């Protein structure tokens, strides 16, 4: 069934056009009096085909604003639900499947099973965001292209019914000044130009337009949103996002997971405010208020043997990390987060003393990765066993309670002068308290008459005092997110701060003036402006009188 869309002015309009593209005459509602539907200037949004293919159906689905609003509403509801229980990424070392069930019971179990415990990273949430993105693109394209075409080729002289059915209308006679129609029109031109309108005349008709660019504002802000969404999705790419917490014991380089970097906490310092520095309300309460947490950090990059036990490290950066002053190296950021006092012996400079009080050594004994053989002329020590946290089980057998050197015990086989040829066993506890606890001298009975192994003074004991906890972060998508956000704001400002105003004037029969005006927003403003313009041209009319149709400002 062919729909006749040829206007009386002679222009052939595409199917679906509401107002003739050329003269603006309403095609369907010829004899009505209601104000015209001026959305998109009445042009057809897109051609309707008789047999929509799958592509057409999908396109039509996403180009509907109703669908877009529903999608946004769904994402809103889902996002709200995601805040009911803490999300998985707020925990450090917890198995999610177990945690939600034990802490929140059945509700927690369902929450985790539905994937809501990691709502914002789940595949269906991302899919919803992609659908909103699709909607943004398709809605915008579907409207902006025809709109651009329509606004680009506007006719100056519009059909009378187009003017008369605008929401701002004036109909009257030429003022009695003796001017002809075209002369009057020409008089209006400078008045309008002063108000920054672009004016086009056609004898006895005039079109004044200003701030058309504000119409593109919403489309620019959609572009910004699309960039923003794509950047958020890009965070999912490997190596683009990281947010983890790690502990760094003083003196030990620790690998930063998923990167080739190792970070060493050389020294951690905590400083407290002195009594004088505290505000008066806090003094005398014995409060310890931290003033400074500082980690002297060294960043290494692994250059070889990276997936083995002995990677080769090259120093690439050094920085003192304070709270809110993170270490920055390329995209990597390390923030000071927490600390704990974890006093551990890192290594001891040990000497051997014989029965004549002669000292041999010192040699370095590490509590983290001790070597197996030590040659200290004339003695040879072989490390037979090592327990980082020595303890005796209920059978009286030695074992280690943990990996941390909290009570180190070294079992040496010592060979040397005055000792048996195959060597004698000597147990060495670097910590005095362990020496007492486990009666080192009794254990070494016999051998301890001939030799003693120990550190000469406290200076020979290298102690780590603190473990510093750092928040390691990386977010390579951030610059793109900001770009998207800035473009979005530009579009919003364009669309909200300025309005697209158009005034059509035609003089018929040399005396009848008909004026119609349209704006994208702020009708009050355009009525006032039109009233001022007409006033300067000799026609007195109140802004209120220009209002036509449904009362909306």
């Amino acid at each position, binding site marked *: 069934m062919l729909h006749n869309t040829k206007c009386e002015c002679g222009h052939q309009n595409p199917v679906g056009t509401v107002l003739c593209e050329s003269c603006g005459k309403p095609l369907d509602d010829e004899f009505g009096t209601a104000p015209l539907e001026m959305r998109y200037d009445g042009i057809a949004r897109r051609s309707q085909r008789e047999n929509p293919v799958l592509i057409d159906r999908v396109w039509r689905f996403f180009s509907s604003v109703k669908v877009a609003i529903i999608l946004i509403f769904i994402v809103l509801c889902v996002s709200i639900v995601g805040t009911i229980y803490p999300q998985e990424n707020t925990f450090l070392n917890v198995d999610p499947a177990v945690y939600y069930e034990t802490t929140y019971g059945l509700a927690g179990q369902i929450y985790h099973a539905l994937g809501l415990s990691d709502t914002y990273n789940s595949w269906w949430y991302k899919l919803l965001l992609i659908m909103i993105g699709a909607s943004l693109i398709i809605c915008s394209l579907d409207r902006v292209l025809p709109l651009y075409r329509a606004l680009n080729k506007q006719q100056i002289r519009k059909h009378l019914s187009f003017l008369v059915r605008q929401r701002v209308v004036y109909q009257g006679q030429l003022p009695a000044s003796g001017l002809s129609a075209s002369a009057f029109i020409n008089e209006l031109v400078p008045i309008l130009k002063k108000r920054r309108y672009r004016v086009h005349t056609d004898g006895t008709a005039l079109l004044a337009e200003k701030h058309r660019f504000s119409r593109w504002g919403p489309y620019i802000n959609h572009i910004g949103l699309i960039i923003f969404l794509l950047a958020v999705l890009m965070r999912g790419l490997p190596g683009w996002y990281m947010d983890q917490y790690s502990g760094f014991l003083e003196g030990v380089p620790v690998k930063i997971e998923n990167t080739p970097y190792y970070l060493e906490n050389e020294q951690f310092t905590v400083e407290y405010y002195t009594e004088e520095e505290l505000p008066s309300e806090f003094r005398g309460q014995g409060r310890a208020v931290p003033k400074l947490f500082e980690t002297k950090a060294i960043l290494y990059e692994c250059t070889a043997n990276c997936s083995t036990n002995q990677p080769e490290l090259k120093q690439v950066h050094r920085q003192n990390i304070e709270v809110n002053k993170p270490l920055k190296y390329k995209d990597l950021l390390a923030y000071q987060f927490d600390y704990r006092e974890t006093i551990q012996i890192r290594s001891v400079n040990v000497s051997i003393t014989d029965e004549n009080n002669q000292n041999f050594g010192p040699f370095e004994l590490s509590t983290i990765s001790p070597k*197996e053989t030590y040659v200290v002329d004339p003695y040879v020590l072989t490390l037979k066993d090592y327990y980082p946290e020595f303890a005796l089980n209920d059978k009286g057998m030695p074992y280690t309670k943990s990996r941390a050197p909290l009570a180190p015990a070294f079992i040496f086989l010592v060979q040397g002068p005055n000792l048996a040829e195959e060597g004698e066993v000597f147990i060495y506890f670097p910590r005095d308290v362990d020496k007492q606890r486990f009666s080192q001298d009794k254990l070494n009975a016999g051998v301890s008459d001939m030799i003693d192994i120990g550190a000469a003074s406290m200076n020979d004991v290298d102690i780590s005092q603190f473990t510093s906890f750092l928040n390691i972060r990386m977010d390579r998508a951030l610059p793109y997110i900001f770009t998207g956000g800035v473009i979005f704001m530009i579009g919003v400002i364009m669309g909200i701060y300025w309005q697209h105003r158009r005034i059509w004037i035609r003089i018929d029969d040399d005396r009848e003036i008909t004026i119609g005006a349209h704006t994208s927003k702020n009708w009050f403003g355009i009525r006032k402006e039109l009233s001022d313009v007409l006033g300067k041209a000799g026609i007195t009319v109140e802004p209120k009188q220009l209002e036509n149709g449904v009362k909306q400002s």
Partner: protein
Amino acid sequence: MRKYRRWVQVFILIAIFVVGGLTLADNLFREDTVPKEGSKAPNFTLPGLNEQEYELSDYKGKIVVLNFWGTYCPPCVEEMPLIQNYYEKYADKNVEILAINENDPLVSVKAFVRQYKLTFPVLLDKDIVRREYGVLNYPTTIFINENGKIEVIFEGAMDEAFLSSTLAAMASS
């Protein structure tokens, strides 16, 4: 512009489809990276106690039992004699046991091996292979069949009933 409308539509829909597909695939793939029962056992190379190298793929065609342990973990220590016992039992039955030690000093591991008279290979790892296999607790024992697929993942100290039945089932199939 109207002529290219169809092409623009197709291009945009394809682009959206591709982005959507990639995002989905990436998400689902990410969840799959921890090896589970039934998935392929990731290959690795680790040094042993005397600096020799052990690579998992060298044992293709054999049943491989990986035991993640440490000397500081009492249940790991408890099950060691049991594992040694079954290592000897299945010595000629195409079964290999690799004990992967996590983060112990070399000296302690050697002393332990001597003390408990262990004859199966002990490998030294520093969280690298452990992370690859998603092992969180010790001891964890992973049974891999001749085709390199993980059949059983067991957390905790094994008792004799479990070890013998699992090995028997795998050796006979």
